């Protein structure tokens, strides 16, 4: 079975141990059979000069037509300035959602500092992708605490809690917060996805790679070989993210 694959969690730019240009990403997508990628910046670019970062993201995305979709970088430390940048990035630049990186940007995901950003996302009707799985700053229950504070926000739980048994926590959170969507990248325990389909349904998982941090071929194989229906895989691979971002 050949699935249409959209990557809900891709990056361009430079991070601590990897980098990727838009050209490399789009070239790679051909080999990996990924037809569309939701891209956000990473590393130093998401810490300061966010307007510059988002301008560059938007211009790169426009160069590749409908292959790439962008999530705006927003840094909660900037308060009202961050909100204005979100207004500009979503309203004028055509970016389709927001990406937060609690570890790179340095904030506890459930801290009040994040609230204006989430409120801005609600105002614009766009989802927020947030990395989870990092102790102290963004564990699933901390993410869940934020999700409970903002039931009207669509929050995508990047990495589904990542390592260890954090995915148990991710499921507890997703079961009680209908506004939480689970993203699959770098979650290595495939049983977690099968259980998620049982617990919260196949409409609330989105496939992601976290490229260039991971090998997309491996990330795809993890989902392809799950013991769930083909219909569920189609949803996870592209239909769910297409619905969320109106792609």
């Amino acid at each position, binding site marked *: 079975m050949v699935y249409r694959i959209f990557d809900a969690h891709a990056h361009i730019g430079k991070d601590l*141990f*990897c980098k990727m240009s838009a050209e490399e990403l789009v070239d790679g997508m051909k080999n990996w059979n990924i037809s569309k990628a939701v891209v956000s910046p990473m590393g130093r670019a998401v810490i300061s000069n966010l307007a510059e970062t988002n301008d560059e993201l938007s211009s790169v995305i426009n160069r590749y037509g409908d292959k790439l979709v962008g999530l705006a970088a927003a840094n909660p430390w900037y308060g009202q300035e961050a909100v204005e940048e979100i207004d500009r990035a979503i309203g004028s630049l055509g970016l389709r959602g927001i990406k937060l990186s609690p*570890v790179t940007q340095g904030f506890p995901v459930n801290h009040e500092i994040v609230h204006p950003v989430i409120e801005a996302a609600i105002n614009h009707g766009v989802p927020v992708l947030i990395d989870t*799985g*990092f*102790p102290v700053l963004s564990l699933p229950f901390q993410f869940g605490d934020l999700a409970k504070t903002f039931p009207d926000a669509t929050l995508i739980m990047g990495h589904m809690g*990542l*390592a*260890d*048994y954090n995915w*148990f926590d991710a499921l507890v959170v997703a079961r009680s917060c209908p506004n939480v969507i689970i993203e699959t*990248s*770098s979650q*290595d*325990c*495939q*049983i977690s996805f099968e*259980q998620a389909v049982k617990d919260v349904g196949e409409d609330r998982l989105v496939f992601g790679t*976290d490229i*260039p*941090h*991971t*090998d997309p*071929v*491996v*990330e795809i*194989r*993890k989902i392809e*070989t799950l013991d769930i229906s083909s219909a569920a895989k189609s949803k996870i691979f592209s239909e769910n993210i297409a619905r969320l971002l109106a792609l």
Partner: protein
Amino acid sequence: MNVMDAHSHLMVKFLMYKEAGVELNIQMMDKAGIDRACLFTSDFLSTDVSVAPKAWEERMNEKIAESVESYPDRLVGFGTVDPKIERAAERLDSLIAKYGFRGAKFHPWHQDFPCGDVMHPIMEVAAKRRLPMMFHSGTPVYAQPLAIAWMAEYFPDVPIILAHMGLTCMYVDAVHAAKRYENVFLETSAMPYTPVLEKAVSELGPHKILFGTDTPFLYPYIEILRIQRLKIEEDDKEMILGGNIERLIDRSTP
């Protein structure tokens, strides 16, 4: 190529996982093309109130020995003891003598111990028997890679293997530890960051990296695919996929 998995578990009933016998391990190994695997328990502490911790420990080690006995060409047994129960070092010593285990696996947060003085008598046994010592790593607080690797200085003859090489969020510590100490090795299961793996191979040398799967919690055909696809030399891959762990096991003396 001879493929050996440095990290697999015998599944007992654990939370939402179903109980399964050693046959599941063999099936999963076959599907992934794995010839041999180091086998550990997955139930480090008693989950049955009628079984005292020490008796439980004995029972879990016995199960590993039985499993290895039923597939001697496929499995290599690793034992474990609870470091908090007195005379843990003696128990490990006699376990090795009794069952011929070729290494030991510890899980600081499951077993609830900080890797400090409590481990030292056990490490002395490991030094005497040249046993590879595998530790779950990457979960704060008790399984910090550097807390485990700190022991390497006191026991330079003991191969210390950091399972999961820092488990994503603590990969920096794991790589630094393996760089600082000759006798610290990194095991690859649940490490999704291929650039980190490739960099570890080039910076530390391929002899420092051991392929592992964490079967059956994780699926070995995925874990091996990641290693097979790394952009590294084929010879290095061969060492990582089996040669390195074989060498560590061969030098241990049950």
